[in-house]
């Protein structure tokens, strides 16, 4: 049974919820003024067609769970899918926060999303602040 008293108690007493969103910008990098949770991320860049690299601001030891979703100005057959995850390096300084690839796919093909005030990608990450799993 869970022993934790804080709201995020189910999976550990040291979990951190990092949620963010950004506005895709076609073939260009997302504009940082469209980011939410700017204190939790160091950058979001477009690395290829429909591919974004999210770099976190803080170095957490473990990524427990994550999700991503897309809202669009008009209905389209698009979905978000995470790609390669690079964990944070923690211990001997300098530490390095984690980063993860996020792809937007049309069926299986990475696809750019046009710039539009109603086109927004949202994602959430639940990190653990220690390596001790309770």
């Amino acid at each position: 049974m869970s022993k934790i008293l804080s709201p995020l108690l189910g999976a550990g007493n040291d979990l951190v919820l990092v949620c963010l969103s950004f506005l895709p910008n076609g073939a260009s990098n997302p504009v940082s003024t469209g980011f939410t949770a700017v204190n939790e991320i160091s950058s979001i860049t477009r690395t290829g067609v429909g591919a974004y690299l999210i770099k976190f601001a803080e170095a957490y030891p473990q990524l427990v769970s994550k999700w991503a979703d897309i809202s669009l100005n008009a209905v389209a057959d698009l979905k978000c899918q995470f790609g390669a995850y690079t964990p944070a390096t923690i211990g001997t300084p300098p530490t390095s926060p984690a980063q993860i690839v996020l792809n937007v796919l049309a069926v299986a093909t990475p696809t750019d999303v046009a710039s539009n005030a109603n086109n927004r990608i949202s994602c959430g990450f639940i990190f653990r602040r220690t390596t001790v799993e309770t």
Partner: protein
Amino acid sequence: MSKILDPMAAAGRDLVVICGSFAPQGTNPPTVLAGKAEAVIARANVGQFTVTIDPPYPECVSTWASVQLAAPTNIVIEWVSGPTVGSVLAGSKWTGTLVATTAGAAADIAADPQNVISWGVIMRRTSFER
């Protein structure tokens, strides 16, 4: 460091986030990566995994699931069975089934360090909704 002091306050004071992740291993049992203490994960069939939460909670408020893949693929992960979200479980353990599908058909996901399924459920500790 996160600036969030009370992450779930807006949705209620008795909510529990239970979440984890595991690495599918093709037709073999998955390798649990996180959330080991709160759930048992098992491969039930092609592309299907059961998630059993222990201890019981009175109500499941919401769920999520996502897939991370080494290469972009037409695979989605979704919950397909389990007690109806929002039902009172009367003390029984919550078990849901995740299924990975490609074009609507269940499909196993090969073992790869970058192939990871993430899941989460939000439970209420009481049946009293505030």
